[in-house]
């Protein structure tokens, strides 16, 4: 058997499995749609200058810095300016009260959303999955009982108030917001992964690994973890969506880091400047972007659930 063949034999089934997974993922339009949206936002996040019509410092009437003049009173009175296409300036989604282009702000905010979503998602997986595995593997022992009781109590805590208290206490920074979200969002991962681990550890191959003298750690991470990974990706996606929405809510309540451009902050700004019902071009785009990115994560999550639970 040549090496190519043996590689084929070894990798063939995996690739095939991957292919089958991909087929199931793309069965509904949802999965690909989610990926597409996310790809666009990722591109925005990575190369904002390619997509934004202006830099983040651009100002209506004055253009890009360095500025040669101040805005005149008449110009200031026109702010926030509705969409303009060349006359008197180009701002496809208009400007906010500070003369910055909405379109550019949107693009530059993608980073924050993805950062918060992925960081919160990954962190809650990093906390929730191992705890769930341990809890499930040591099912019905005091370890399991302790973890589950903690999860149970946390489940009953009012989430947003907790986050509000934590963020207001520890300071309004993006990191603190992410940490506060993770404090709660690991629980779902933990509980579900535990259930999976409970049933997986009954399977024959785990027993045989045990008989073969594998350590607990090895069994958990080599034999059980790979099987719950797809499921944990589902949760990662859902947690990401949830984190982005939570950040938006916090921003609305005035608990977002104002130095980092974010969609939530744009919405908070329109409210604090008092233009909510006067500047649709400022009100709609950030909300749509939040909805889209959260929906994209949910789409991917639920499409992956189909992949992870192939019985349907």
């Amino acid at each position: 058997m040549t090496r190519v063949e043996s590689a084929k034999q070894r990798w063939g089934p995996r690739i095939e499995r991957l292919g089958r997974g991909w087929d199931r993922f793309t069965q509904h339009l949802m999965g690909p749609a989610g990926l597409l949206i996310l790809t666009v936002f990722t591109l925005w996040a990575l190369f904002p200058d390619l997509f934004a019509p202006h830099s983040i410092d651009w100002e209506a009437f004055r253009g890009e810095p360095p500025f040669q003049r101040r805005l005149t009173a008449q110009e200031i009175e026109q702010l926030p300016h509705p969409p303009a296409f060349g006359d008197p300036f180009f701002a496809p989604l208009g400007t906010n009260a500070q003369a910055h282009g909405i379109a550019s702000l949107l693009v530059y905010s993608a980073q924050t959303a993805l950062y918060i979503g992925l960081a919160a998602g990954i962190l809650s997986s990093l906390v929730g999955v191992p705890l769930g595995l341990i809890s499930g593997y040591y099912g019905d022992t005091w370890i399991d009982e302790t973890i589950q009781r903690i999860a149970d109590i946390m489940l009953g805590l009012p989430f947003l108030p907790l986050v509000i208290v934590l963020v207001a206490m520890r300071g309004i920074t993006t990191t603190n917001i992410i940490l506060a979200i993770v404090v709660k969002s690991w629980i779902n991962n933990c509980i579900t992964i535990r259930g999976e681990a409970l049933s997986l550890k009954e399977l024959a191959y785990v027993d045989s690994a045990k008989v073969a003298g594998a350590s607990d750690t090895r069994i958990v991470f080599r034999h059980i973890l790979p099987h719950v990974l797809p499921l944990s990706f589902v949760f990662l996606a859902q947690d990401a969506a949830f984190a982005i929405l939570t950040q938006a809510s916090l921003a609305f309540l005035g608990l977002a880091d104002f130095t980092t451009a974010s969609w939530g902050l744009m919405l908070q700004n329109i409210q604090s400047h008092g233009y909510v019902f006067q500047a649709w071009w400022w009100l709609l785009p950030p909300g749509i972007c939040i909805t889209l990115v959260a929906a994209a994560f949910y789409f991917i999550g639920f499409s992956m659930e189909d992949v992870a639970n192939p019985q349907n």
Partner: protein
Amino acid sequence: MTRISAKYLAQRLIISYLTILVIMTLLFVLLHSMPGSFIQTMQSPDMTGEQIERLKEQWGLNEPLWKQYVDFMVNYQTGEFGWSPHWNVPVWNLIERRLPRTVILFGATTITGFMIGPLVGMYLGWWRGTKRDRSIFTGGLIAYSLPSFWIAWLFIWLFSFELDLLPAKYMRTQFPQEVYGTGFEWTAMMAMRDVLWHLALPLLSLTAIGWVGSMLIMRTVMQNVTEQDYVFLARAKGLSERKVMIKHAARNALIPVATGAIVGIAFILDGAVVIENVFNYPGMGNLILDSVLNNDHPTTQAVFFMLAVLLVICRIIQDIAYTYLDPRIKFGEEES
């Protein structure tokens, strides 16, 4: 007709009580790790050091930490929530007025959300894989992704500004005499109608998002349930599809929905906290934000506690509903 196992209920009640104790402890630790003393909010610039000491004494801040903890636990369990330095009233006065408002908004949304969600989930699970299922499911996920305050703004804009149909502020007519003439007195019926009228928009905004959680569970479970033999048998018995779906499939699918309900309920409570701020609806969400931002620890503590208790009560109701839905639990034969 139902005979709920007393043992089961007692067990749940004890767990709930312990949960509350743990939450209180957590609360205590949390607020005592906060930077700055909340006593500062009560200080006035003219106070001397001696007066500040006296103030601290009054608030028990000079006691050792364990004593403060014990006092806190005892006070809370006797319903003594202390005094709000920010609002200059007993904390209970604040809670007493605001809690019902939040409960009304939150309760109404929970009810509508859990009526619509499982109903839609039932149909989607039943039609799983059809075009209708996919489009409604996708729509549901998009609704689930809406920032609640943003959709509330859009609703206000549409229903209040453009169509002038619904009020977008407060929870009832502020000065009824202006609307109904002098000497007007509320009747219970009118007051209720008035509250519902004002509740419409917040409720709509919150339900627009809140129904999805239970829909998602119901849809998945429904799909598993339709493959069960009893559903097949029900169909073989000659029952109409509708009856099979509702009486046999959906009724069983509700059990897991009830088990997982607390997550959706907590989600709705979070939504209520935000929505209150949009609708100038002075409730608990508003209060906790104000008190946190103003270092009003006694109020923060109490609001958080009450919201946690609210959720614990929801869980007890959830347990009872679950017991009612699943006869295996009802007769104390809990299956693992």
